[in-house]
């Protein structure tokens, strides 16, 4: 299927349109809230919550016997929240560290969920099919109602985010200080956590328990590299998330045998890798370039100041000296001399060099700066 055909299908085909819309909204809301998780250093909490949601789904099914998505989601929400607060309890009340608490809750809840699901599957109640879609997610099972639900939650989330923006921001940056200003930090904290859990639960049906954490982290981690403003970061993360959703859905729809979840995660992963390397201010590529350039500049400066010290001993700063004497200096190369000539700091006459007026001034400045720094 080529791209134009696909775009046409998105607008005409009901299923494809629903899925595309669903993954786009999901990507946006997880990206948005993921920014908060990343900045609170709770990146792995998402992974733990998504696993912890599983028994909730199973229990909700056992109780109601219904396959109604929203009731199952409610179960997931409750169990995700229990997991989250239990993790906190373990960290604050025992000497187990946060990584152990996360790993514990993640694996124990998940295992218990599996026990319940396999138990349900053996029951005569034939209604149970579809529970295991929460494991890896099946975007194909999204229906319009699910998308409406996602849109509703995203809308509420956006509203709350805008309403309490200032409070969220200051809590993320400096919780103790926030407390002294008189804000109820517990309330803000619970609000953020609840929305993160909600976003995760929403995504379970589409990308599944296992890959959910990437949906939360990848767009945020990518967005962080492009900006130094929280609002821009949250906005970019939402865009990256939505884009990953749409592109991932498109790729998986145009190929056989590709489930949507992993493809979306890979697309988001590409965003991350691209951002890590090519971000102008933080990216590895430009960092490396800056590093090399700095080193080269430093070498030039060293050579120049070495020359300055020689020239200083003469009354006439333009007095020529043999190039040979520079050979004693470590940082000196033919290339660096050439560069200095290009910058019009130095003149060369045969085997002799002399500082120009400009070169002398620059070198004197460098020297002053250095002595100032040492003081």
């Amino acid at each position: 299927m080529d791209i134009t055909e696909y775009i046409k299908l998105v607008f005409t085909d009901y299923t494809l349109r629903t899925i595309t819309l669903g993954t786009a909204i999901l990507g946006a809301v997880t990206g948005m809230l993921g920014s908060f998780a990343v900045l609170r250093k709770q990146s792995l909490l998402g992974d733990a919550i998504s696993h912890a949601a599983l028994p909730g789904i199973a229990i909700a099914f056992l109780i109601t016997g219904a396959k109604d998505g929203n009731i199952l989601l409610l179960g997931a929400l409750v169990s995700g929240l229990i997991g989250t607060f239990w993790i906190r309890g373990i960290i604050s009340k025992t000497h187990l560290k946060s990584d152990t608490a996360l790993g514990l809750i993640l694996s124990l809840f998940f295992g218990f969920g599996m026990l319940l699901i396999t138990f349900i599957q053996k029951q005569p109640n034939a209604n149970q099919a579809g529970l295991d879609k929460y494991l890896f997610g099946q975007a194909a099972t999204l229906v319009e109602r699910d998308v409406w639900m996602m849109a509703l939650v995203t809308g509420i989330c956006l509203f709350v985010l805008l309403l309490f923006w200032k409070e969220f921001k200051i809590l993320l940056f400096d919780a103790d200080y926030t407390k002294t200003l008189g804000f109820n930090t517990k309330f803000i904290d619970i609000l953020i956590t609840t929305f993160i859990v909600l976003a995760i639960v929403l995504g379970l049906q589409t990308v599944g328990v296992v890959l959910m954490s990437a949906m939360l982290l990848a767009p945020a981690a990518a967005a962080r590299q492009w900006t130094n403003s929280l609002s821009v970061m949250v906005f970019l993360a939402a865009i990256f998330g939505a884009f990953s959703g749409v592109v991932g859905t498109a790729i998986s729809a145009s190929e056989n045998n590709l489930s949507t979840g992993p493809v979306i995660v890979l697309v988001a992963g590409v965003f991350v890798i691209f951002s890590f390397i090519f971000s102008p201010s933080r990216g590895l590529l430009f960092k490396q370039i800056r590093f090399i350039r700095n080193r080269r500049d430093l070498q030039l400066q060293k050579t120049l100041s070495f020359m300055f010290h020689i020239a200083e001993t003469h009354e006439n700063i333009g007095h020529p000296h043999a190039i040979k004497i520079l050979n004693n200096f470590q940082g000196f190369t033919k290339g660096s001399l050439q560069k200095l000539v290009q910058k019009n700091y130095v003149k060369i006459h045969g085997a002799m060099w002399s500082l120009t007026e400009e070169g002398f001034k620059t070198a004197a400045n460098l020297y002053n700066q250095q002595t100032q720094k040492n003081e």
Partner: protein
Amino acid sequence: MSDKIAVKVDDLTVAYNYKPVLWDIDLEIPEGVLMAIVGPNGAGKSTLIKSILGILKPIAGSVEIFGKPYAKQRQIVAYVPQKGSVDWDFPTTALDVVIMGTYGSLGWIKRPRQKEKKAALEALEKVGMLPFKNRQISQLSGGQQQRIFLARALVQNASIYFMDEPFQGVDATTEIAIINILKELRKAGKTVIVVHHDLQTVPEYFDWVTFLNVKKIATGPVKDIFNDDNLTKTYGINYKVSIQE
């Protein structure tokens, strides 16, 4: 300095998990002093100001700010936490951090506007950081970060300032800049309470001092009580070592 008591601490006892950190502290800080809290590591200096500010819950005792509980006096108290207590890689600018100082008076939901921004810019000017207002905070030096924190407290326009180790890890220029601002604050009749490490600078910087080591050892004017006797009581046999640090 007036005769009014700015901060009154009564029988304050604080314990972290199993370890008692502060014991039965009685402390009266007069209005208008520039006070250092000194004591060895683990003496509970930070704990003391955190408990006064309600960040930590004491086991016993009470705190009054100008005769009323802290919760009612938030508006006139400002706090400068330890520089290391936050993540400086947070995506925000110097100006943004300083504006956070206005959040308390804004209260819930209300956004900072021109007025708040103007106050923040003035505070930045005061600490000499105006040219850096749009810098990402991770691109500031340690001293500059400390000045940003100070500016954030200045914006609160408080009567009492609590500062946790504002001189830690700052360059000499910043140290002078900060102490000048603190002295200005005192001149304006404000009360400034500083957790301080460097004993040698105490007589030069401060006019009031509290010696703390789990218990309160002594409190009063620097010229009266900053002596070897109290230092030895506070630092024990390690006193000389601490001075060298």
